[in-house]
């Protein structure tokens, strides 16, 4: 028994009001008389003073108001499902990377699938099941149905993804499953008690822990360094509680750079240094020793090329031109940088003119033909040709803007800071927002964006970099955003290295043929901006072929929590845990049965009785005292 909205008990004050009216009606003036002897023969309404008078009309009104108050507050009782009605089950699966760990002859997801099938087989006829999976997000894999064949097929289609299972996704999955009378949760680690407590009060939750303590190794990171300058590094971590041998192989393209077997101490994180690399290119590190999870045994990185790219820097401010050139040289010392005042710039022409690989424009816009990539920093507000060419509109300027913490601040590992003048930019649909900021009168304005337009790769940084902002030690966030943007714009077009679960836009014309790491092939249509968007959920190499151009998307996976397969001890029992456990020990799932209609019926019944009594009194008193 409980109340859906106890706040509505505020309406119970009407009861107090009724009692006040009752007491007021009962109150009688007290008069002092010379002697009660005189009133011996006067009629007495009551024999003695009583605090509570039996007044049927009052009690009927009290019952009516009480019933209505309870109805508004949402009184309910928990009742077992009625006989003959099929119970509903929700099968919730953890589809994180850890569920792909080897467990006996198969994987953990196979084990979970097997247990789920047993539950389905043992369920009485008429019971319905739904299948919900979660990792980064919760997703209903199959709606509620009693068709066992469909359920088995949906279970067979469950595959773990190379992404961590988030608690928020589990919470969302349980919320979606809350309509069922029973939830079976299959996961490799127990969920937080607070999450279970949210749903355990209304529905029975059966937790099935899949898998046991297991050893796993993972490549935490891979840093190619600067070819010819700094050493490359790979970080290997042993999640096992015992020493573990590990064979590591790292190759740059087809050339092996490092291959060694080493012994990792329990829970050791080892840094493997090698190089420096002699050239740029795709660097691939692999762990060749078998362990539980394969997804974190491979990692890609791209070593920047040292080819002499042509870069043009345009800015009306000479100091800005100098700062941007310094940053560009820091990214790639082989950049050939040309700087110019846009008012005096004359685009090179003639047959000998080489197109620029990157054009950086600060507070100006000039259409430069043939540029492979364009970086617009603090784009000018009145550049109509900019809007015409790239679809970027500048709607004004903010005196200052704060970088939001979920953008550059976190990625740079520094606190978000206040920037100076910032343009309010309206971006076209084909651009991906990288960072946002807040400013006076604006909750969110784009701060950094990148995308591929019809004229090539375009990046936008909305903030002004005057006054040596990029070199100021207190504004590392601005520098990090700029460096990341330059790296993205100068990266090779045919190789994209992303993390699993990230959205990736790949240039395409017409239909694109996407080959997944497991060898399966899908065909996707390019959108009106000439791109296909994929979201790699498996670690490895995705190949996108379109219009004779092949683009490789290399997805890396690593998550310290997900890759750690050592079963941690249960946290101490807290109140939510106890409540969840109590709820989970219910003999059978109970359903919420609101009593609104019953309470309203009682109220109406009481009103009818009161009306009948009033009519009776009216007839007796000839309508004079009603």
């Amino acid at each position: 028994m409980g109340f859906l909205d106890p706040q509505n008990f505020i309406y119970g004050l009407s009861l107090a009001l009724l009692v006040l009216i009752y007491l007021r009606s009962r109150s009688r003036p007290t008069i002092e008389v010379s002697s009660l002897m005189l009133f011996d023969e006067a009629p007495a309404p009551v024999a003695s003073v009583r605090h509570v008078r039996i007044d049927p009309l009052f009690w009927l009104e009290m019952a009516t108001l009480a019933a209505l108050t309870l109805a508004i507050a949402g009184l309910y009782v928990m009742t077992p499902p009625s006989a003959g009605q099929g119970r509903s089950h929700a099968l919730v699966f953890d589809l994180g990377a850890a569920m792909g760990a080897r467990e006996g002859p198969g994987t953990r997801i196979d084990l979970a699938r097997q247990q789920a099938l047993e539950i389905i087989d043992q369920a009485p006829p008429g019971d319905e099941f739904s299948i919900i999976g979660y990792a980064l997000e919760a997703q209903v894999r199959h709606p509620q149905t009693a068709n066992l064949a469909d359920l088995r097929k949906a279970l067979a289609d469950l595959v773990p993804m190379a992404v961590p299972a988030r608690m928020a996704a589990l919470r969302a999955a349980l919320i979606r499953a809350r309509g069922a009378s029973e939830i079976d949760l299959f996961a490799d680690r127990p969920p937080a008690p607070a999450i279970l407590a949210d749903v355990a009060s209304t529905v029975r939750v059966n937790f099935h822990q899949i898998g046991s303590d297991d050893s796993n190794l993972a490549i935490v990171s891979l840093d190619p360094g600067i070819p010819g300058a700094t050493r490359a590094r790979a970080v290997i971590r042993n999640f096992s509680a015992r020493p573990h041998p590990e064979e590591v192989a790292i190759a740059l393209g087809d050339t092996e750079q490092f291959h060694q077997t080493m012994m990792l101490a329990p829970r050791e994180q080892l840094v493997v240094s090698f190089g420096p690399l002699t050239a740029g290119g795709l660097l691939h590190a692999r762990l060749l020793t078998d362990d539980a999870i394969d997804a974190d045994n491979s990692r890609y990185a791209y070593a920047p090329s040292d080819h002499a790219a042509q870069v043009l820097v345009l800015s009306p401010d000479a100091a800005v031109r100098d700062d941007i050139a310094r940053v560009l040289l820091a990214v790639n010392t082989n950049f050939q940088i040309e700087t110019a005042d846009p008012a005096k710039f004359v685009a090179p022409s003639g047959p000998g003119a080489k197109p620029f690989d990157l054009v950086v424009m600060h507070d100006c816009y000039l259409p430069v033909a043939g540029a492979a990539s364009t970086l617009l920093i603090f784009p000018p507000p009145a550049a109509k040709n900019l809007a015409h060419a790239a679809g970027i509109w500048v709607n004004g300027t903010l005196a200052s803007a704060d970088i939001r913490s979920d953008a550059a601040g976190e990625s740079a590992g520094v606190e978000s800071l206040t920037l100076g003048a910032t343009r309010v930019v309206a971006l076209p649909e084909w651009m991906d927002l990288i960072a946002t900021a807040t400013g006076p009168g604006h909750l969110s304005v784009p701060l950094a964006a990148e995308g591929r337009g019809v004229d090539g790769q375009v990046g936008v940084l909305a903030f002004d970099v005057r006054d040596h902002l990029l070199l100021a030690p207190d504004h590392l966030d601005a520098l990090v955003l700029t460096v990341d943007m330059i790296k993205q714009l100068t990266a090779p077009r045919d190789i994209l290295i992303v993390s699993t679960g990230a959205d990736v836009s790949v240039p395409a014309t017409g239909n694109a043929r996407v080959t997944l790491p497991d060898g399966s092939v899908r065909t996707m249509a390019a959108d009106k901006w000439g791109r296909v968007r994929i979201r790699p959920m498996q670690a490895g190499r995705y190949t996108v072929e379109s219009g004779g151009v092949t683009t490789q998307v290399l997805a890396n996976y690593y998550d310290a929590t997900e890759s750690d397969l050592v079963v941690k001890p249960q946290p101490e029992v807290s109140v939510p845990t106890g409540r969840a456990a109590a709820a989970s020990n219910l003999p059978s799932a109970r359903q919420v049965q609101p009593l609104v209609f019953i309470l309203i019926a009682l109220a109406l019944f009481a009103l009818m009785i009161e009306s009948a009594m009033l009519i009776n009194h009216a007839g007796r008193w000839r309508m004079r005292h009603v």
Partner: protein
Amino acid sequence: MLEARAFEPEFLRKLDRMVLGIKRARTVRAGQRALGRVQGLGIEPENFKEYAPGDDLRFLDWNAFARLDELMLRTYRADRQVEVTALVDASASMGLPERDDKLGLALAIGASLAYIGMADNDAVRIGAFAMHRGAMTLDATPFHRRRESYLNFKPFVTSVKAGGETRLGAAVDQLLLQRRPPGMVVIISDFLVNEGDLEDALKRMVAARHDVKVVHVMGEQESTASYPPGLYRIRDAETGEVRETVLGPLSVEKLGRKVEKIAARIREICTAHAIVYARAFGAGNLEAFMERELPILGIVR
């Protein structure tokens, strides 16, 4: 308040021609109630009687003995003045209902009778009684005989406040303990007391050879229950007892009957003991009561 009326010259002028109807005795006879005789005292010869052993030899009439050769005693009438006490009930019931001013009416009647009593130079006093916390309080003025000293009653009359319980028997006890010679006692009260207490008190007063007069005062609102109809919680002013009741036309009728019943019972008791009973209901009837009711009853002439 109404008691002040008893000291207004205009009102007193109406009382000037009145005298108290005191039955004064010229002789003493067994069983006869008479006032104002004290044998052997005084200077006015009253009668002759034959000597009997034990008589005071100072009153022997030696001339008659010489002439008749018989011992004869000369008797004298001592004093013709009578002590008059107006005893007013000052209990809490006399103060209610306030609009009726029963206590004022009672004090006004008592003061008026005192003024009338002074016409014959009788010794007159006014007393008020009430039981406070179990102790009877009987306050009384000194005796005054001449009308010039009538205003000496005013401080006492105007200072009496209603409060306490009515215990007529205890008040009579206090009065008798003063061992005053028999006189006229006028008891003015609402008599909302126990019948036994009332009758016992009156009997003892009569037994002490006092000429007792009873004036029964009631308020107009009290005797007609002129309250707005409705439910009431009524509280006894003297005992504090609370009762719930319904006041309306029916209850007014019953209340009137109850008042009449009480008055009739008191009259019955008084008649049984040869006591004059007068009822003064309503403060507005003071002058009519003094000018018409009392002469009819013989309390004044």
